[in-house]
């Protein structure tokens, strides 16, 4: 499936700035026309070029390597693969580039080509498959807290330690705990992308995907439930710990968490991905397509480290030597 502009016939895409479909060729707004492909999913619906190189096992949205048309693979967003929810992009490509430059522009040891226009323009918006789990939990915690008081009397210092039994029973219901269902995306990166602002969630519509890449879930929600449960356990423990205060030390005796999965939604969440290749390694950077949060670790150019390090050494030596002469005169 592709979206064509009714006015000019060009490939119309979703524009995050305008939050609507916008034709980049004639600036037409909401002039989309869905064109469902009758050909193989490995052929571009616009130009007929083969797309084997860009249609991988889980791809559902891609870009034709020949004509650049954004194509959505119908059967990979239908039936069991049809997402329940989608969080449309709110951060445009230009904004994502600007956020990357704000975050990493001042890193002195990054290679000079790291954020130049030629490199950073390769950034692509991708919809990442997530399962969102709802859990109801009940937890019980037992622990011991101590409070310490000290005072002096005569030649002696006294220390009084009071022991308290801490008991908590807590009900906590969690809504839409996200777990990425993509093997390609690193879990660490995806966890750091959180949180997304869920008020922007929409019922799934294909038009939001035009202009972006995407993949369907690689693993089932049952396979990924354990990651969600770990997140729930960690959050429950954090909430209980937050409720305990005023003690010098706290020792946990036991904690029991009972959790019940209520609901699971399959959702697509927006991520800008920039891959910078440097000396044979790929460095990945991600920008949350909704909140603009940036995640990534910059490469280090060793020639810059040497140049800048030697310059600092030289400057300090020069300034120190001149101050030495100055002090010899004034002292």
């Amino acid at each position, binding site marked *: 499936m592709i979206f064509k502009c009714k006015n000019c016939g060009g490939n119309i895409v979703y524009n995050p700035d305008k939050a609507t479909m916008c034709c980049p060729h004639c600036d037409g707004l909401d002039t989309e026309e869905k064109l469902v492909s009758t050909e193989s999913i490995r052929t571009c619906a616009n130009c007929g070029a083969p797309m084997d190189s860009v249609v991988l096992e889980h791809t559902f949205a891609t870009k034709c390597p020949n004509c650049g048309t954004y194509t959505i693979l119908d059967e990979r967003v239908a039936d069991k693969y049809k997402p329940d929810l989608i969080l449309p992009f709110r951060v445009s490509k230009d904004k994502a580039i600007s956020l990357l430059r704000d975050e990493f522009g001042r890193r002195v040891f990054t290679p000079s080509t790291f954020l130049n226009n030629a490199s950073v323009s390769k950034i692509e918006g991708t919809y990442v498959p997530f399962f969102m789990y709802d859990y109801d939990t009940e937890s019980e915690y037992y622990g011991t807290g101590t409070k310490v008081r000290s005072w002096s009397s005569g030649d002696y210092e006294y220390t009084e330690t009071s022991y308290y039994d801490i008991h908590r029973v807590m009900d906590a219901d969690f809504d839409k705990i996200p777990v990425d269902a993509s093997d390609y995306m690193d879990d660490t990166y995806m966890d750091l992308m959180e949180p997304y602002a869920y008020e922007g969630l929409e019922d799934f519509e294909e038009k939001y995907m035009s202009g972006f890449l995407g993949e369907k879930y690689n693993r089932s929600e049952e396979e990924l439930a354990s990651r969600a449960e770990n997140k729930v356990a960690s959050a429950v423990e954090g909430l209980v710990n937050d409720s305990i205060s005023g003690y010098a030390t706290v020792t946990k005796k036991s904690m029991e968490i009972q959790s019940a999965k209520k609901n699971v939604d399959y959702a697509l969440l927006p991520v800008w991905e920039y891959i910078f290749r440097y000396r044979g390694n790929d460095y990945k950077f991600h920008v949350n397509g909704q909140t603009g949060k*940036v995640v990534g670790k910059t490469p280090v150019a060793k020639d810059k480290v040497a140049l800048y390090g030697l310059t600092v050494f030289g400057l*300090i030596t020069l300034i120190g030597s001149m101050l030495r002469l100055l002090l010899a005169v004034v002292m």
Partner: protein
Amino acid sequence: MKSYFKYFAIPFIIALVITVIALPMYLVARADFLNTARNNSSWDNSVTVLDLADKMSNEEEAALTEQLRKAEAACQTDIVFFIIDDPANGYLDSVRRLADSFSEDNHMGYDYPGGSAIVFVDNWSRGGDGRIHSWMSTTGEIRSRISDSDATEMLNVLDELSDDDDPYYVYSKLGKSVEKKGSKLRMPYSMGAVLFVALVIAVIYIIINWRSKLGDVTVTSGTYLEDGKASFKVRTDTFNHKTVTKHKIERSSGGGGGGGGSHGGGGHSR
């Protein structure tokens, strides 16, 4: 390279400004220092080493004299090393008076009577307390560079001497200390210290700028809570028991004192 110069623009300007101020000042001071000739007709300064106790050979006396001449020029100070074996001055206080009066009576001073002068007296005759006493008297501007405690500390080198030792080596060390501490254009710290500090700062700079983290965790325990909060059915903190321990407080005590005069200097007994 454009970003390099932009990045270092302010440090380059600071270094340039300091260089423009410090280098000419130093060169002018150095030229002034080199052009300041000795100007004291009352004391002809023909004697620098007076070895009345005959503790050094003629060659050693000549070598020490040459060394002290350099120290005099660097410190712009008249210097006399007065070595005696005089039982009449067998106490530290009499050695001090001898050193002070030698300076005063001979009108010592580099550029005028009363200018900078150092007189070191080492009396090899053991006094009533069985010890050998020495004194280094300082007069004039040199006192701002060699304090009384500096003089006392310098004389500690005499501890290396015994009755049978050749004292030339120790006197020579003392002369070097005087030159190092009393030099008029004395550097406040060594070039080695500058290089060390520059190296440490450069390494810290590299470490700080090399470090890079993936990103910050911005999810809290309550981020995905329905309605934004958890409900506690039980939330109790019950006192169980308490313990009291005691230990004895260790106490300590201490004290100190000090003094001053127009001649300065320091003494030593061995």
